[in-house]
């Protein structure tokens, strides 16, 4: 099989403690079936604190909005409501969910395309709107006037920023108003000022590049200045999400894997993927062409640290660090992290149904009790090894089992579809799993748990449970929809015991 190429997941303390709790996870999986999504609501509060610390380090005021689209979990959203965080919603359903989880409208913002119902409920409740352009602003103003709603707070979403000197080409966005035509948009803001209050401007850029974001942030500072010169007093710059997560424990495993994958695509080593899939790379007359369509799974700087780095970056033309510019211009900073706040907040379990050897090779096929949409790590380009949790009867013997040898396996789903591959790549495991074992995909809470889940072939969608540890360290659980932040403090349990 050759040398195993592991991609071991990064696990912080809560997640690591949970994946150690083999018996507890098997009990949940036996009782509730798999696929099963397990959430750690307390982790999201910890992640939020790290973002807050980055704000404090730079003396910045402002709010952190969790991008709801990253997770549908009620437990996460309710826990966040308990911490004083804010939330960003992108549909009327997400808005209803946020309101029902305890977010006051002042702590909710809305982004993305909006239909009239979404506009009405948001305006009625009094949430903040990110408006994409003039048409949306006018529609919102008309609605507020027609239904005699309270004045709404808006942020203008901008895009198409440009820089001078060295031109930084920015990835094009479908959303937002181009930086160059912002004047016209501001004219509209002035016309609807009776029903709309401009609180600031913002962007969301889908890029890992700090340099691009620095150009955009400086662009926003310039637009804010134009607003001030028109006599408006906006206070907020919203820099969207995209702070990233580091999924892997070790840089070296990631570096080696990518090197080997490139060689495999060029035919210089045994294949690492199903039918020569190249994750975007291909061989063109012996050269690697295309580009690797994968999430950079190991990131030296991600999440709150990435925010810190961005804030410390000098503005491309004004020269001062971006945080200093925000601060000395008296602006508040809004951020909308999705993936980064959901980091380490959950895992996905699936039972092993069948293990068999490939007819024509030394790889193995492992069929799981889930389908590809139940755990969309690969759809999101995240390559990360699952853990194997042995079933109870072999549990004790396994860890010491020295005869266990590394194997390469392909993980398949339970749909009757050729394409139902959980992994398009050969996954190396320290030993061969057996039917009844649990395969555990960790760190799936952000986008990889329920973003794409659907009821294919009438298979039920995965259940969700929230889990936490008691003071004495024993694990507790509740169905996700029945979890409230007071649940974990034990009040409900004690009440029930009386």
């Amino acid at each position, binding site marked *: 099989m050759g040398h195993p190429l592991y991609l071991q997941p990064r696990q912080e303390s809560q997640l690591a403690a949970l994946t150690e709790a083999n018996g507890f996870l098997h009990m949940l999986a036996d009782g509730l079936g798999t696929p099963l999504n397990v959430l750690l609501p307390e982790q999201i509060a910890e992640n939020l604190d790290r973002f807050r610390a980055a704000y404090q380090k730079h003396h910045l005021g402002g709010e952190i909005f969790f991008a709801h689209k990253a997770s549908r979990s009620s437990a996460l959203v309710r826990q966040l409501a308990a911490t004083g965080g804010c939330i960003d919603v992108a549909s009327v359903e997400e808005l209803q969910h946020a309101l029902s989880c305890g977010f006051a409208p002042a702590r909710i913002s809305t982004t993305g395309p909006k239909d009239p119902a979404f506009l009405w409920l948001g305006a009625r409740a009094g949430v903040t709107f990110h408006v994409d352009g003039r048409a949306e602003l006018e529609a919102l103003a008309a609605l507020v006037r027609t239904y005699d709603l309270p004045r709404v707070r808006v942020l203008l979403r901008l895009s198409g920023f440009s820089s001078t000197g060295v031109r930084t080409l920015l990835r*094009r966005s479908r959303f937002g108003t181009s930086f160059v035509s912002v004047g016209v948009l501001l004219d509209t803001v002035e016309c609807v000022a009776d029903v709309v209050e401009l609180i600031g401007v913002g962007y969301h850029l889908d890029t890992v*590049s700090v340099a*691009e974001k620095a150009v955009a942030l400086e662009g926003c500072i310039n637009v804010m200045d134009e607003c001030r010169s028109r006599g408006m007093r906006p206070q907020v710059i919203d820099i969207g999400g995209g702070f990233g997560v580091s999924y892997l424990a070790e840089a070296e495993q990631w570096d080696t894997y990518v090197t080997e994958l490139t060689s495999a695509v060029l035919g210089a080593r045994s294949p690492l993927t199903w039918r020569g899939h190249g994750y975007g790379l291909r061989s063109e007359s012996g*050269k690697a062409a295309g*580009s690797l369509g994968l*999430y950079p799974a190991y990131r030296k700087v991600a999440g709150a640290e990435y925010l810190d780095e961005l804030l410390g970056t000098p503005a491309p033309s004004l020269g001062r660090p971006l945080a200093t510019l925000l601060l000395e211009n008296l602006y508040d900073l809004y951020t909308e992290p999705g993936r980064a706040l959901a980091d380490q907040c959950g895992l996905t379990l699936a039972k092993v149904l069948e293990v068999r050897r490939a007819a024509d090779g030394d790889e193995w096929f492992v069929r799981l009790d889930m389908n590809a949409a139940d755990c969309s790590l690969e759809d999101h380009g995240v390559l990360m090894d699952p853990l194997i949790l042995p079933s109870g009867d072999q549990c004790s013997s396994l860890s010491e089992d020295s005869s266990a040898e590394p194997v390469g396996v392909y993980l398949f789903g339970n749909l009757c579809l050729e394409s139902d591959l959980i992994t398009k790549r050969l996954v190396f495991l320290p030993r061969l799993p057996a039917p009844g074992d649990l395969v555990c995909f960790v760190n799936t809470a952000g986008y990889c748990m329920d973003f794409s889940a659907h009821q294919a072939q009438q298979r039920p969608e995965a259940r969700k449970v929230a889990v936490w540890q008691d003071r004495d360290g024993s694990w507790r659980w509740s169905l996700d929809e029945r979890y409230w932040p007071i649940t974990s403090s034990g009040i409900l349990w004690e009440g029930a015991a009386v």
Partner: protein
Amino acid sequence: MRYDSITDAIGNTPLLRIAPAVHGLRNIDLYAKLELLNPFGSVKDRAAWNMTRPDLAEAAERGSQIVELSSGNTAKALALIAGLHGLGFKSVTNRMRVPEIKELLLLLGAQIEELPGQTECLDPTNADDPLTQFHRMLSEPGSDYLHTDQYYNERNADAHATGTGPEIVRDLGGRAPDWFIACIGTAGSSSGVARVLRAHNPDVEVVGLVAQKSDFIPGIRNIDEIQEVGLFDPLVYRTIDAVTSDEAIDGMLALVRRSGVLSGPTGGAAYFGALRYLRPVDAQLTQRRTAVFIVCDRIESYLSYIRKRRPELFGGKAERNTVATLSDEEVGAATTIDIETAQQWIAQENPLIVDLRSPFAYAALHIEGSVNIVDELFEELVRGGLPFSKRRPVLLACPVGEKSVKYAAVLTRLGHPDVRSLSGGIVAWRDAGAELVRE
């Protein structure tokens, strides 16, 4: 020597023997091919000139713009060649991470475009990888580019097969060295030189050097990135080794401080990689042997790169009246004043109000009557002594009162009798509802 065009001065660079006392090899003569002495400053002068020469006349007639994916030396050489022939030059890159190089290119008249980074959320339908974008730009209607295509252009390697390689053989008295060591960017220099050396001595061992993955050495690629290079042929190299930026800087320092060669980081990488490879071999040798490595370019453009990795090389500055020299007691003893008291004090005593924020922020909103001296400038000013009369009280203001209290301490140390720092800064001033004006 007399020349009619600066391009005539390209090539014929010295082959310098490194003193054995510096490199410590007993049986191997180690030579540096000093490509940094080319007129535009690097090994890439040869490739740039060879790639453009046949097309320049036509390009000048049509008014084409030269375009290349380059992060440094090729761009520099092309910018100068373009200027010589009245053409424009545009460099497109996502690798230009050394600020001085960017600034130098702008100074030379180049246009620089930086390609966007990787997406944060994977979009499987996205066909917009940076190279695809670049090629689309080349074929946009109405555009007229002379694309030199250094990663695929055989004329890049040929420049070295007809220049660098034969020069080395000539300077070694008609013999090829036993080892040849070079860094790999486009692979043009290493593969072109190797071709010539092999013709003279089929046993010559070529050592290719790349940057350690997850590290960065400006001008060269890592082991994955060379797989995308058209001119790269793995069979040219006996081995391909990785060098870290730290090792490259160590090698560079040896060349600079002990051999009088103003080498940049990749020359240092080649020297370091050469010694690492040759030392064990040297210990086994009984006969004299020869090795050659390339010093690609000069040190001056990499100061910030080096400073970032080895700040200690630049020494600490001993300064007197700076914020950094303040003790906690001095800062604690500085006078602060809250917003309400400050407003009364301003009305009664008319202190000089100094706003330490940037001119941009000051212009937008400030306390009426204040003067703006941005903190960086203020730091310079006080270094020389007290910049204000002791007779007039001073109120210092910054965004949150953190910097101003330190400068208040510095002014106090300089003997000013009444400096106060606005507690909570301009943010607190605004939050208290006090007036800010835009003039």
